[in-house]
């Protein structure tokens, strides 16, 4: 039989549109407008999943986003999603879902053994055991982990798209219940920009499920009119199926919109979800309230649900969750649901913890044949996979005891109502302060932050009439505060048959003995935290709310305690005999509801994860099969393999080409900064360790930068282009840092210094040609006189290269005769191709960063960030020659004389030659004082750079070595992880062309 629990009429599902879906492998039919939960209930499926720890049978507790129990594994394959609340899933054709945390099935779950052993698994049991032997913990842990964890992660890549959006508005209203709607109307009529957010597919909130009247007419019709008007206002944006997730400082809200989650077809262009980042001048919170469960033994069985949920299933979905129903309440308002159930054909019994009952309600109960047990409490329930019987007993309030006979009631559905808790999560995230309200026994907003309002039941106000006035006026007031027009006030008279006025949290019904003696009064349903656990935590000294939370895990489930927190606090208050305000509450943290990680990642996935910065020759490199290296965000050719060369073969070929004829490197990624102004030289004098005053126009000079701590932080060549004009180059990775360093001093320290810095990194494509044939080669392509006399080493010239205006720097990082040709980026590829074409006769060879590294190492040139690591001074690098002794001051200078920095036995930069002339030392391997069989060994330094040198035919290495300068020629040992010990000789750092003849050619 299908839809056996569906009422004959009623509800707002579209009975014309049946929808097929599958739960735990079995097919069912629901209707358009159903949620998965309502459709399951309609089909008499109550057992939805198993709880976290004891694997107890769990059903559907609520009908909204606060659901702790009915969480399922939704979808299949790459689209599967764990821990989805069935109460929120809109049914679509073909939906597949299954129970989680159970094996082999939800009906027969081996893990349910835990329930029988639960006695030895109280809160925090794992702290007390599994300690011995220590080495076994990983073994025990394996099983603990398997038992925990709820649903399953997908194991394939997510095929869906997620979009994001920044949004600015005057007023954001969270919650589209009556309060939010009226606030939106008030603000909307004034003309200001309003954003209204509600998590449901339909606006109206709580009142969609209950009967009420406005001006003595059917309230639902009036509600529809309000919504229609809002829909018609161009300045009001309404987001449905959107949950406000985080509320941060400066009225910053984040929200997650379900865009196609409820669609049958997956869309390739539309996102599944859209993540909103919202800034608003005012925020109005109108999130409503959650109904609070009652605490009694075995209150977790399927078939036991919140009264308001029962109401919703019945009135909105036309589903009658039970035919023989018990309502267990501590307040008047829940009687509405009892009446509704009777009307739809159920037999209802009420168990009310109070002894006095409003006469009107009494009478109506009588007329509807509802038996009411006053001053009674449900004390236990029975039923394997669904509740079938309850025990009730009289409550003696004064004695705080249960008394008298235990009665039994047979039932198939228990509705409970313990009062209402305002949804204060977002309010609290925003730094709003809460206070405990003794009338409704829950936390309500106290101090609000600037530019915020909180209204309706969210503010602890449950009276419809009050809310009609206050909410509309709150909207108007917010708009007024933003200087929008005044709007005329309206008087509506609103009435619910029974209003919610007050309730108690009633821990006495627990009867202390009952709680502790083995029965399970659940506080936190998902995490299986019972009242006994709370008692235990107090007994053991975990008395702070925060300790109780962490020791018992109450409120730490996927629902973050939306249903459980207040009961836990009330119980603690009862145990310590202290007001709840003194007990306090735990911290509410974002997100309000679990929020998809992929949506927060947005489009920053796959290719768009991070920019690939590309030079103007990049495409050429790709076409010519370069292997790339990531240097920061840049893509740089690492080497250019030909045929089937591996990196070593390619690098060898590239190196030799440079040394013997001609190589070309794309050096465009180097940072470039243009400095102009009369104080430029003075500025450089402060920034670099060496002196700049005497650099001639047209000349280049290498410079070293230290931070104020005296450590090398960047290097590069700076050239003087004109009287007050310099061109600085930096390392690729250091470009942004150097620019910011220069600006920092210009903008914060030396405000009077007349220098402007402009980054021109990308303005110039840089083609570095290097090798003995480079002059010959370039000669034909430029109008610049390249003769040795006219254009010597470390000079700069302007002219045309391949018909393009170019800046040519005669500097060298390879030690060969070398020119760095800078052309505007747009011509980079053109000139490069011309070079390749014209260079054929010199066998021009494009080379990558690896070859560059080898060539410079042969010359002993440092690479900042590889040979240095932020803890070495120029002196450590044997670069005293570049540190001015004359300059009074420059950045870093003062630090050189501190005792540790001036120490003589610091690690120093040296060369290493392996004695066997064969082994390439791993970069990062260490020199030790003495090689031992086993670590530990005392280290003296490490290898910073190490290569096979094709030019020399043997390996070379650079290293930092303690007191290295006084160890020239000495033998050192480098033990490898594989047990080998490499012997090497300490040398100076220049391995090739020590006199520097070649680049001076």
């Amino acid at each position, binding site marked *: 039989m299908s839809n056996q629990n569906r009422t004959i009429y009623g509800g707002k599902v579209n009975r014309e549109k049946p929808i097929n879906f599958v739960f735990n492998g079995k097919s069912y039919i629901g209707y358009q407008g159903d949620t998965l939960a309502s459709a399951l209930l309609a089909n008499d499926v109550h057992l939805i999943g198993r709880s976290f720890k004891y694997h107890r049978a769990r059903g559907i507790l609520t009908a909204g986003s606060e659901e702790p129990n009915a969480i399922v594994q939704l979808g299949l394959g790459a689209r599967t999603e764990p821990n989805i609340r069935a109460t929120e899933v809109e049914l679509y054709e073909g939906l597949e879902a299954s129970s989680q945390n159970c094996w082999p099935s939800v009906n027969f779950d081996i893990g349910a053994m835990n329930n029988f052993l639960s006695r030895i698994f109280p809160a925090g049991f794992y702290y007390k055991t599994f300690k011995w032997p220590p080495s076994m913990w990983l073994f025990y842990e394996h099983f603990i982990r398997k038992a925990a964890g709820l649903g399953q992660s997908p194991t394939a890549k997510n095929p869906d798209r997620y*979009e*994001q*959006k*920044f*949004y*600015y508005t005057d007023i954001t209203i969270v919650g589209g219940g009556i309060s939010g709607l009226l606030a939106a109307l008030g603000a909307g009529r004034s003309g200001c*920009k309003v954003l209204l957010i509600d998590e449901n597919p339909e606006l109206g909130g709580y009142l969609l499920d209950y009967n009420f009247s406005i001006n003595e007419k059917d309230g639902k019709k009036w509600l529809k009119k309000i919504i229609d008007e809002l829909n018609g206002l161009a300045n009001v944006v309404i987001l449905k199926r959107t949950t406000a997730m985080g509320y941060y400082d400066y009225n910053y809200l984040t929200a997650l919109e379900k865009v196609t989650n409820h669609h049958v077809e997956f869309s390739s*262009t*539309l*996102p599944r979800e859209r993540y909103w*980042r919202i*800034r608003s001048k005012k925020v109005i919170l109108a999130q409503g309230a959650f109904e609070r469960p009652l605490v009694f033994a075995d209150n977790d069985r399927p078939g036991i649900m919140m009264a308001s949920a029962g109401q919703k299933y019945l009135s909105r979905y036309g589903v009658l969750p039970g035919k023989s129903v018990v309502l267990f309440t501590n307040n008047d308002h829940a009687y509405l649901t009892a009446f509704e159930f009777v009307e739809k054909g159920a037999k209802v019994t009420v168990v009310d913890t109070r002894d006095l009952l409003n006469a009107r309600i009494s009478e109506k109960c009588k007329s509807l044949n509802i038996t009411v047990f006053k001053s009674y409490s449900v004390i236990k329930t029975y039923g394997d996979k669904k509740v079938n019987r309850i025990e009730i007993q009289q409550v003696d309030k004064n004695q705080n005891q249960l008394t008298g006979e235990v009665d039994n009631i047979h039932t198939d559905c228990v509705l409970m109502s313990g009062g209402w808790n305002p949804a204060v999560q977002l309010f609290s995230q925003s730094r709003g302060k809460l206070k405990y309200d003794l009338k409704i026994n829950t936390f309500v907003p106290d101090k609000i932050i600037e530019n915020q309002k909180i209204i309706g039941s969210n503010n602890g106000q449950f009276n419809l009439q009050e809310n009609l006035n206050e909410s509309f006026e709150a909207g108007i007031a917010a708009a007024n505060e933003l200087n929008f027009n005044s709007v005329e006030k309206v008087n509506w008279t609103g009435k619910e048959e029974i209003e919610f006025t007050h309730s108690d949290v009633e821990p006495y019904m627990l009867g202390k003995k009952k709680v502790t003696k083995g029965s399970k009064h659940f506080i936190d349903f998902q995490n299986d935290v019972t009242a006994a656990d709370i008692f235990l935590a107090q007994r053991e000294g975990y008395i702070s709310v925060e300790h109780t939370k962490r020791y018992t895990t109450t409120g730490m489930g996927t629902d973050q305690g939306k249903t459980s927190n207040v009961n836990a606090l009330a119980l603690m208050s009862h145990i310590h005999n202290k007001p709840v305000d003194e007990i306090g509450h735990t911290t509410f943290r974002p997100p309000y509801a679990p929020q998809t990680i992929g949506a927060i990642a*947005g*489009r*920053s996935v796959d*290719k*768009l994860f*991070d*920019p*690939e*910065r*590309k*030079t*103007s020759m*990049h*495409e050429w490199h790709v076409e010519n099969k370069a292997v790339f290296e990531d240097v920061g*965000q*840049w893509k740089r050719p690492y080497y250019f393999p030909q045929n089937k060369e591996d990196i070593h073969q390619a690098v060898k070929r590239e190196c030799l080409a440079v040394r013997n004829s001609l190589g070309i490197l794309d050096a465009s*990624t180097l940072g470039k900064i*243009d400095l*102009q*102004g*009369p104080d430029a030289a003075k500025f450089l004098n402060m920034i670099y360790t060496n002196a700049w005053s005497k650099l001639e126009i047209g000349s280049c000079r290498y410079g070293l930068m230290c931070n104020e701590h005296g450590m090398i932080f960047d290097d590069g060549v700076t050239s003087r282009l004109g009287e007050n004009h310099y061109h600085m180059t930096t390392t690729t990775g250091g470009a942004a840092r150097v620019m910011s360093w220069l600006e920092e001093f210009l903008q914060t320290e030396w405000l009077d210094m*007349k220098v*402007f810095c*402009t*980054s*021109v*990194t*990308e*303005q*110039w494509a840089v083609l570095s040609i290097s090798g003995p044939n480079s002059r010959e080669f370039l000669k034909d392509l430029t109008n610049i006189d390249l003769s040795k006399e006219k254009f010597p080493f470390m000079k700069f010239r302007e002219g045309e290269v*391949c*018909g*393009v205006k170019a800046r040519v720097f005669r500097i060298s990082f390879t030690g060969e005769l070398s020119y760095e040709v800078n052309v*505007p*980026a*747009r*011509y*980079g*590829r*053109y*000139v490069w191709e011309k070079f390749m074409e014209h260079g054929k006769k010199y066998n021009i060879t494009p080379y990558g960063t690896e070859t560059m590294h080898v060539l410079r190492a042969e010359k002993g040139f440092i690479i900042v960030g590889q040979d240095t690591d932020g803890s070495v001074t120029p002196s450590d690098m044997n670069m005293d020659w570049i540190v001015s002794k004359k300059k009074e001051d420059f950045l870093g200078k003062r630090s050189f004389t501190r005792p540790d920095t001036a120490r003589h036995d610091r690690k120093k930069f040296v060369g290493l030659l392996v004695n066997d002339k064969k082994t390439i030392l791993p970069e990062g391997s260490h020199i030790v004082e003495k090689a031992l069989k086993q670590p530990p060994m005392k280290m003296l330094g490490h290898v910073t750079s190490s290569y096979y040198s094709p030019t020399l035919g043997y390996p070379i290495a650079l290293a930092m070595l303690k007191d290295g300068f006084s160890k020239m020629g000495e033998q050192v040992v480098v033990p490898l992880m594989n047990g080998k010990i490499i012997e090497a000789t300490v040398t100076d750092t220049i391995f090739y062309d020590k006199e520097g003849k070649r680049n001076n050619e």
Partner: protein
Amino acid sequence: MSNQPQIFSPLTQKEKIASDNISLELIEFLGKINLRLKENDSQARDAVEKYLTYSLPKSAGEVTGNNETRVLWLGPNEYLLLTEDEKKDNVINGLREILSDLFCAITDVSDYYLTMRLSGPKSIEVLTKACPLNFDQYLTKGNSCAQSYISKATVLIDRLSNDLVFDISVRWSFADYLWDWLADSSNEFILSKK
């Protein structure tokens, strides 16, 4: 092969997007000159304004100009001057001349940035996917500009007219990324191609 130097950029080969809701196209190279003057240096400012024949932007987001040049506010002492590519050198030389004795910086940044044009009714929707600017407050009308970021690229956005036409300048090396990002983000809105 012609001897005329050819120009090329990462955007040269991108397929342009033209649809009812959104368009994305490459803007050919423009002359772009970065001009720096000390904040309160009225002498230098006067000289430039005289040379340009109009006043420099005075506050954030302002764009001034005439038929020949267009000046965008980049900072209290920084402007971006746009010209036709061919006229760029003239302008640079002209500025150098009139500012020769004054403290300033004039830098050719024509290739530092690449520019792409995003337009169409959904252009703000596309931009605000990852640009934190408040478009109710900034770039509300033609001849205004703002710097910010789009996803992971720092950008300069120039609103050319009261219509939804935005020229987005980005550092050359980020252009490929930004184009792909904009194209990918436009996807949602491309219902029919023009």
